[in-house]
């Protein structure tokens, strides 16, 4: 599997570290239901067959986080964009 890094170009998946689902949002730790919300966030992940949005870190390349749209059945990659939008705080 090769990931088209926007800075480096197409690179072997071995250069990257996988984080997981890019669609979930870290819950508010101050909320009343924080314990349950964090349990859901950390452990109850979907395992979709098909289109998936994922975080990948280009550890052995430009050292940037990427948001990758991958089909989990075929490994076909529809898009890979920088996780950080230019101009946003680092």
């Amino acid at each position: 599997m090769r990931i088209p890094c926007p800075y480096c170009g197409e690179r072997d998946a071995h250069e990257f570290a996988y984080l997981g689902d890019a669609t979930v949002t870290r819950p508010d730790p101050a909320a009343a239901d924080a314990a349950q919300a964090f349990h859901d966030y950390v452990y109850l992940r979907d395992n979709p067959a098909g289109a998936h949005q994922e975080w990948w870190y280009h550890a052995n390349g430009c050292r940037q986080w990427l948001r990758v749209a991958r089909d989990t059945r075929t490994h076909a990659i529809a898009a890979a964009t920088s996780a950080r939008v230019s101009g946003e705080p680092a």
Partner: protein
Amino acid sequence: MADHSSHDPLAGIPFDLVPPSGAYGAAGEASVTVSTVETPFIALVVARNGFAASVAGRLGRAFGLEIADRAGAAMGAASTVVGTGPGRFLVLSKTEPDLAGTLRALLGAEAAITEQDDAFVTFDLAGDKVPDLLAKGALIDLDPRVFLPGHAATTVIAHVGVTLWRVHESGWRLLVARSYEASFTRFLVASGAEFGLRLENGTAGRG
């Protein structure tokens, strides 16, 4: 006749020591030369958020080079600037002992500068067989028709992190973390032996 046999060019050389200068592998004129003799001054420039284009422009004007925020090597007679990530540049100089100081004066608050003189070993590889040698450990396409002079990449070769660029038609420069010098040199010798390889070691870091 090579100094070290082509059957096992690394026989008897301890794993933790950099193999000595000499000829390795196939007899006759070496098709690949590897040298760590040149030790440029090196600094890392990381542009602060929103300043990547400005930093590229300032570096370009100061060193007389065409620099863009991309994975490429801009090379001049005394200095080279290599893109290693968005807004991140490695600067090499033959002539600026206080390169980090010079860059701080040039870029002010637009970038974070760190001196890297002793961080890397600089491998200069020459010869038409270099892409064939590197292909044994590389994950990227280094075919000379694809990876052209001025192209640069930060990647892994033989499981070791490397920033490399093609200097000219038959010359490639690789930066490898200094602690990997022995094992990366072993990879080069073992992989280049079939072509005949001449190794020229420099002296160990500036210390």
